[in-house]
């Protein structure tokens, strides 16, 4: 460590190397906790402490996080942040912040990305992608340039293609099956930070 400011204790650093909490694995290969911390800190310098050795309980609100340049133009930015927050309202602690960017990094495995993609597209958080969820997704994708009939048609077709158990909505298994056949899912579900 030398003369670097001690932001994290050694134990915390070890913990950040490979943490297996819930289904999240943190990959520190491409970015160090210190760098991410720097980004987290600059979102709200007066709120975020420089010293994390005492495990402070600090959460940043949704409004601050979606202003990051990597997320600002993304039509799904609100849903992304909400999916990673414990309270579902978009308030991220530093741990959750790191989780978010590690899942969206190149090194996260496909299964993990699929889990979070499912959460992001599930607007009403009922663990199923129903027609309303798809409609909202589609509108965000095309910036509402499709006519309502076209939206209906595309949503029906999409559900028809992916629905395996025939309940007219997509469960996680359906979603994951469909994603496994998409060749460029890994490269598109990726934010570089």
């Amino acid at each position, binding site marked *: 460590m030398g003369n670097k400011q001690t932001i994290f204790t050694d134990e915390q650093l070890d913990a950040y190397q490979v943490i297996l909490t819930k289904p999240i694995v943190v990959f520190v290969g491409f970015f160090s906790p210190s760098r991410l911390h720097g980004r987290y800190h600059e979102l709200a310098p007066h709120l975020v402490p420089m010293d994390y050795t005492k495990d402070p309980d600090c959460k940043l609100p949704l409004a601050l996080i979606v202003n990051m*340049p*990597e997320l600002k*133009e*993304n*039509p*799904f930015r609100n849903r992304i942040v909400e999916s990673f927050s414990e309270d579902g309202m978009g308030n991220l602690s530093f741990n959750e912040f790191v989780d978010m960017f590690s899942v*969206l990094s190149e090194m996260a495995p496909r299964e993990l990305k699929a889990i979070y*993609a499912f959460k992001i*597209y599930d607007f009403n958080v009922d663990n199923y992608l129903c027609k309303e969820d*798809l409609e909202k*997704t*589609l509108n965000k*994708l*095309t*910036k509402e*340039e*499709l006519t309502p009939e*076209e939206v209906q*048609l*595309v949503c029906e*077709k*999409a*559900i028809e*293609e*992916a629905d395996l158990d025939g309940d007219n909505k997509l469960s996680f298994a359906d*979603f994951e099956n*469909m*994603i496994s*056949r*998409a*060749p*460029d*899912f890994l*490269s*598109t*579900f*990726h*934010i*570089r930070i």
Partner: protein
Amino acid sequence: NFGGGVQSYFLLLRFLVLLNLVSFLLIAGFVVIPSIVLRAVHSSPANHTGPEECMKYDPNPQGLVAFYNYVLDFLSGMGFMEYSYLFYGYYSNTLVGDRNFSYNIPLAYLFTVVFYFAFCLICIMAMGTAARIAVATGGSAAGNYSMIVFTGWDYGCLGDRATKLKQKNIHYRLQVDLEEQLMKERAASLTLSQKVVLYTLRIFLGFVALGLIGAACFSIFEATVFSQGILGLILEYLPSIVITAGNFLVPLLCEQIALVERYRPSTTVILALLSVFLRLVSLGVLLFTLWGQIKCQVDLEKCDLCQYNHEEYPCWETRVGQEMYKLTLFDLIVTIGALVLVEFPRMLVDNWSNKVARWVGRQEFVVSANVLNLVDGQTVVWTGALFCPLLPLINTAKFVILFYCKKVTLFANCRPALKTFRSTTSNFFFLMVLLFGWAMATLVMIYSVAIHPSMGCGPFRFFPYMWAIVPMSFYRLSEVTQDFLFFVGSQAFSVPLFALS
């Protein structure tokens, strides 16, 4: 951002620019620069001459020439431009060089052209294999709605403009698939009588399309015959005008026909691609007519003296070169003219009034038509390379201008074309079409090499046919070299060589 098809177009354009530039450097290095730099030292390798009548060739006009004549000459390749390094007729048929070193211009000319064709073929094959790999491995299954919805968005997309373009991209991908879907459903839901009516209509319109193509070919034939005897710029350009008009109108009509018949978009696309045959066929008709005139299909006695029509074509290779030159130039003028006169006002209209724009229809960058233009232009250059050595250079400049013009058009005016291509297969298809054009140009070259060169001009002045220079030069080499070359060509050497490679 505008779809894979547009990217293919610009890739193809870039490839062609490079190809033309390298070919020009080749030709310049082996033919033009030695001709300019070195002076003739020996007399012609062929020691016989022809009848006095056939050798008369006087391209330079007598007396005072008005200034506007220079402009006319520049556009038609006659006058001061005719007897210049631009055309075949200027190159000497002698050896050039200085005391210790001699360089056989006719041989170099022939070999350079042959090598140029081989080089172009190799380049096209190389691009083709690369494109074919892309077809085999890549290319997501577009048309799959759930894929587009859930994996279409690139999360790494940064910036307002990139985001907007991505959204437009997804929007029209969905629209294309929806359109195809609707067409399929409509086609499936026809009753028997409706189907009969539809098929009859299709057959009838097929005949109409064939008739249109036939009429176009006939008018090209007539225009070429008519323009050969008389001077005047419009008449000079008549074949080019008719070809360009035909290339423009017939696909347009076919498209309207296709709309009437309510074909699926992919069928319309195939129809658009079939118009490449129309373009190459029109070029073929032009050449066929020209040669008909040169070889006197009409008045047989004119060709008795020199085996070609020496009265109207004292230097027929230059004439053919001029036609190709005019075609290239006219294509460029029309493209720039269309850009300035048609697309620019449309852009202004779009920006001012949305309602009028909706009525006229936003500009689309139609990939197929543009690619066919490129292939057509390149085929003209290949056909004319034997007769107009500087044509690849002109074509390089033309394509560079075209590149920047189209780029400006694309970003300022257009929205992405609705009827879009699957880019991976289209890359491959465009190269196939280019190959077809190359094959046609090669046929033309082989035919030209085999008929009697004109006696008034050019490097092959007194040979019975162009290829005759090769045996003649071969026997002038020293004994040792001759034996070595015989050995290399013999079976004892070449068979093991093929086995090893």
